[in-house]
């Protein structure tokens, strides 16, 4: 009888210790170094195998049984809030709090005392947690002094319970659990590669995975002549052009184009990059225009025409192309001007824009803004009335028929212009023919890709494609 009630008490004690909430503390002092390496991104969003660091920590908190999670940051993390939102996607309730750079962990707990009224798992600092989704971390809080403490140079895992001292957790004998430091870009690289090579089964990773070591995202285009060697991971909207060699050990993020002849081995290409032609990427991390050596951490920025582009230059405004454009524009103009003028009478939606020409001078154009609201506008779209109205600019030689999407003559546009050599604005653009929406992040990549790979037939395809997509 007595024995029974005793064990009941002991059980309750363990129950009480089970963390119900997780507090993830990210301070600039420990994670800020990464901002110097990978810019425009909160360090917490650093992808490991195409999944942000914080999402691993979130997954682990859920495995531990947490139902509420709070991110505490001393600098705003808008990307983090946009990505995780209120946590409904993961079935956990997420909130956010700010701390000051001078706060200690005790101060932070005090500031979040309402949140931490129940046993709370605390992941403090900038670290990766090695765990396995197949194991159980319910008994995490059992005290096991014989196991190593879960702490490293840049972070630690603790448990907080009201009325008890804050305690660093210990590892588990039966389950995999470790806290790995993130103190240099090499740490991020090593962990990513290790996951891809040998522990990809331990985590929930993005992409379609029907054989070991291969993860493929949505909307991936792989050329026939591409050679792929396991293990590889491809994100969404990845294009692998002809004669590319991918892997072994390639982690390619979303919205990436790898252009012809380039090889990528033991490397990480972070989201939204265009890797030019005939390059050899080995043991590197590529982030937009920066290449970082995984071994030494040395980084170089490519200031070239195209993001990370190779050596190919495209000659500006070649004569034959100009003539063909001009002749085509003439044809279009003659056949399209009468219906266009009729539509013009029906629609009075002319807007004047100032755009940048290829030489950086500004040019005012009056364009029709056609939405798909009314039947007339839809018809006008189908007959390319908005394009026909711009044809006089082509005939006078100020714009190309097919070219880059014009940059607006604003400070922003001029910045883009300065960063984009071989800019040849045209009234038909590649990104439009690919049905990429205006302002989409893919637009820039597509435009640069187009500039790097201009062919005569490509220009015609752009016209035909624009036409067919509108139909």
């Amino acid at each position: 009888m007595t024995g029974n009630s005793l064990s009941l008490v002991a059980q309750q004690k363990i129950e009480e210790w089970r963390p119900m909430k997780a507090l993830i503390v990210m301070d600039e002092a420990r994670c800020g170094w990464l901002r110097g390496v990978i810019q425009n991104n909160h360090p917490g969003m650093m992808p490991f195998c195409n999944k942000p660091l914080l999402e691993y920590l979130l997954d682990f908190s859920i495995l531990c049984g947490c139902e509420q999670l709070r991110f505490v940051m001393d600098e705003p993390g808008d990307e983090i809030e946009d990505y995780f939102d209120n946590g409904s996607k993961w079935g956990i309730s997420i909130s956010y709090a700010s701390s000051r750079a001078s706060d200690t962990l005790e101060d932070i707990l005090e500031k979040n005392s309402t949140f931490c009224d129940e046993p709370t798992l605390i992941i403090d600092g900038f670290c990766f947690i090695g765990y396995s989704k197949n194991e159980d971390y319910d008994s995490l809080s059992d005290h096991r002094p014989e196991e190593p403490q879960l702490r490293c140079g840049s972070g630690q895992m603790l448990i907080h319970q009201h009325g008890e001292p804050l305690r660093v957790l210990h590892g588990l004998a039966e389950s995999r659990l470790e806290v790995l430091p993130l103190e240099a870009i090499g740490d991020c690289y090593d962990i990513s590669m290790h996951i891809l090579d040998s522990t990809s089964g331990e985590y929930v990773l993005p992409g379609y995975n029907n054989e070991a070591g291969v993860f493929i995202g949505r909307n991936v285009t792989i050329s026939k002549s591409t050679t792929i060697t396991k293990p590889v991971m491809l994100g969404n909207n990845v294009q692998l052009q002809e004669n590319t060699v991918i892997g072994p050990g390639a982690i390619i993020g979303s919205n990436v184009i790898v252009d012809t002849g380039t090889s990528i081995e033991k490397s990480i290409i972070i989201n939204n990059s265009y890797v030019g032609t005939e390059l050899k990427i080995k043991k590197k991390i590529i982030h937009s225009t920066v290449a970082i050596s995984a071994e030494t951490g040395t980084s170089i920025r490519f200031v070239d025409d195209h993001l990370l582009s190779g050596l190919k230059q495209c000659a500006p405004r070649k004569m034959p192309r100009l003539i063909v454009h001009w002749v085509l524009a003439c044809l279009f103009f003659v056949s399209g001007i009468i219906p266009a003028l009729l539509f013009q009478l029906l629609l009075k939606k002319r807007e004047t824009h100032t755009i940048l020409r290829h030489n950086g001078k500004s040019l005012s154009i009056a364009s029709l803004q056609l939405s798909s609201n009314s039947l007339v506008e839809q018809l006008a779209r189908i007959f390319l009335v908005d394009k026909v109205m711009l044809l006089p600019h082509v005939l006078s030689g100020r714009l190309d028929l097919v070219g880059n999407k014009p940059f607006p003559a604003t400070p922003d546009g001029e910045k883009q212009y300065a960063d984009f050599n071989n800019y040849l604005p045209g009234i038909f653009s590649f990104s439009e023919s690919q049905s990429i929406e205006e302002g989409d992040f893919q637009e820039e990549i597509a435009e640069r890709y187009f500039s790097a790979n201009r062919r005569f037939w490509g220009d015609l395809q752009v016209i035909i494609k624009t036409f067919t997509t509108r139909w």
Partner: protein
Amino acid sequence: MNFNQRRENDILIIDLSGWLDADSSDLFQEQFDIWSESASKFVFNCKDLEFVDSTGLGSLLLGLKATMKKDGDIRLATVNEKVQMFLEITKANDIFQIFDTVENAVASYT
């Protein structure tokens, strides 16, 4: 972009410094035409060469092509980490022989 040159037997040793990019590649090519009138074996000391871009690399390659026609070569020495990485990514290190020191590069011609 600055150039210092000295001669060791029939080898012309050029110290490159600064940036070899779109802005300076014309100057480099002009200079190179002058140098190649008197020599076909080059060692480029890249100790103070901070940066190369694709245009700069293009002009190096043009130079290499021209010298190779005359049975010469361009060999690079003391390349810094950033330039080294650039050469590696663009596969230019397959074409150029790169040495740790200028002496080794000069010695490699014999």
